[in-house]
């Protein structure tokens, strides 16, 4: 099989299959949890639960900074690394120039894309952050206890995607280009299909978990 044949398979049926698994899996997981139901709460709320739930959905990720001295001081690497990684990975997925044609195919229109220099900076910072976060997971006793195969596999997979993306767009010339691109696309396809089975699906549960958190904050009449 030539590199171009493989490219066609990955871009064609494999990507379609992965996207199907992703959407079906994520929808199943979201609705399965949603349909479990809730008991009625008859206690009169002290504040406004719905307002707080919506407020927290927008603000919760930033509120860890309020515990700066005790949490940030011990886990700065997670805050800074986590922020850079998320910004980088999401920014690259949706707004990197090389992906614009892909989104046009999927969505029917082209997404705005960032200058190549910004994309490069995001890619390097996301990759370095991911490495730092993984090393931190290995050595920090708390993270070591909490981390399973799922986290390491996901980190390696995402690292491969970013690294091969950089390789394809920046470093490899000539015949190696398609192989680097194939590896990049293949790891991305595996990731897309893997998300519903892993903790990477946390972006779906963020909306449920933080909604309940905010609701309880409003019910109890506290601000935070």
């Amino acid at each position, binding site marked *: 099989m030539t590199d171009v044949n493989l490219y066609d398979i990955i871009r064609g049926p494999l990507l379609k299959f992965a996207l199907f698994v992703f959407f079906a899996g994520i929808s*199943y*997981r979201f609705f*399965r*949890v*949603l*349909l*479990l*139901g*809730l*008991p*009625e*709460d*008859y*206690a*009169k709320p*002290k*504040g406004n639960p719905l307002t707080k739930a919506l407020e*927290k959905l927008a603000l*919760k*990720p930033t*509120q*860890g900074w*309020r*515990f700066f001295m*005790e*949490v940030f001081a*011990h*886990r700065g690497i*997670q805050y800074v690394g*986590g922020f850079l990684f998320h910004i980088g990975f999401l920014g690259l997925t949706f707004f990197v120039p090389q992906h614009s044609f892909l989104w046009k195919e999927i969505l029917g229109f082209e997404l705005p894309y960032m200058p190549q220099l910004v994309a490069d900076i995001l890619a390097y910072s996301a990759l370095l952050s991911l490495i730092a976060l993984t090393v931190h997971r290995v050595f*920090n*006793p*708390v*993270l*070591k*206890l*909490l*981390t*399973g195969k799922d*986290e390491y596999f996901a980190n390696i997979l995402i690292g491969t995607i970013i690294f091969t993306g950089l390789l394809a767009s920046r470093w490899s010339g000539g015949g190696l280009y398609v192989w680097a691109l194939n590896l990049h696309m293949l790891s991305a396809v595996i990731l897309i299909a893997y998300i519903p*089975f892993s*903790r990477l*699906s*946390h972006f779906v*549960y*963020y909306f*449920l*978990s*933080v*909604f*309940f*958190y*905010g609701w*309880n904050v409003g*019910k*109890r*009449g*506290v*601000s*935070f």
Partner: protein
Amino acid sequence: MTLRVEHKEEITQREVETFYNFCKSSVNTEVASYLEACVRCGLCAEACLFYMGENISGKIDPTLTPAYKADLLRDIYKENYTLLGRVKKLLGFGVKITSEKLREQVKLAFYTCTMCDRCTKVCPMGIDTPRLVSIVRGALTQAGLVPEDLAEATNTAIEKGSPLGVDVPTFLSRIDFISDEWEVEIPVDRKADYLYIPSSIELMKYPSSVASTAKVLNKAGVSWTVSTKAHEATNFGLFTQSREVTRELLRRILEGAKELGIKTIIAPECGHAYQSMRFVAPNVFPREWDMEVLNVVEFIYKMVKEGRLTLPKRVIDKITLHDPCQIGRRGGVLKEPREILKLLAQDFKDSVEFPEKNICCGGGGGVVVEHEADYHRQKAFLAKAELFDKAGVKDVACYCANCMLALSKSSQELGRDYRFISLVDLVAESIEEEEG
């Protein structure tokens, strides 16, 4: 069948199955969302007073991480509610629960978690770990694995009406004593608008709090009473997470209050008492529980705001505040004690940048009665003491007798010289000085 909670030494397959089934049946949308949302970041550890206390001593115990405390529950959830989990179980890779594993759960859920809710505030996903720990506690209780001291106190509460064994004759004699000693009128079993229910810790260990509350109520000029039927505010059903015990103890309060035509219950300086009556009772008795519930500090603040109570005298120089988690962070009474203290103290120094950040006493959730948890409680106190030291204050106002007990105990055991003072005592002092 007599209502009791059990402390079993031996763990057999039956206990394991009971634990497992309780966890499985406790899952709903909210619980599943929390279980699924955890990204294993472990930031919650840095907010947990038990983990912090160990850290201050130069040690790291990763098992004290709140996320870890819900891990067995998470595993049980996964193999019953997720596709991958079900497949794993089918292939024989399901959750294996040994007796050691269950014993570890007792340590994690009962000895090293006060369900203070601080970890929730730090969690980027807003996971309510106390909610998850409460399920683990409930499952352990159902399996008969309640820590010995806690089981004893809970059963005494069921049998005699109070965890400290305060039955009706003892209650009446304590009320008589307090009335005489502090020269304050305390109406008993009268038809009234307000029902004040003390906790037995106050009655037996901090009687001045009861006298002070009586003085405040008399001064505010409201129609109030105490009740022989509803004479105990604490609810050990919440500590053990036994629905049956919670219901039984609340039923006594409901019946006592209904008999006297009560409109508002005044919960004492007791965290779980407020939590149980304000947020749990309406769900246990959705039709019958139609009374308003105010914590005594909320009541005082309301009276001050309405001009029915004035606190013109400052009765203490420099003081800080300890917030009981179940009244403060989980109960929403955070502004009121601060506003009151500003009127009572020359120099009120808050020990935290924002009220929800305050640290638990280390003895909440029943931890103070469990002697097996003494080591962890003392370690946790180190985190608390750091706050007092940073504020440079030795006097600490409290609005929970259980917190006062735990803080005083730990402070004494560790040779510290902080003074823990009831907030209502300060209010009463101010009223008396004004009258004087």
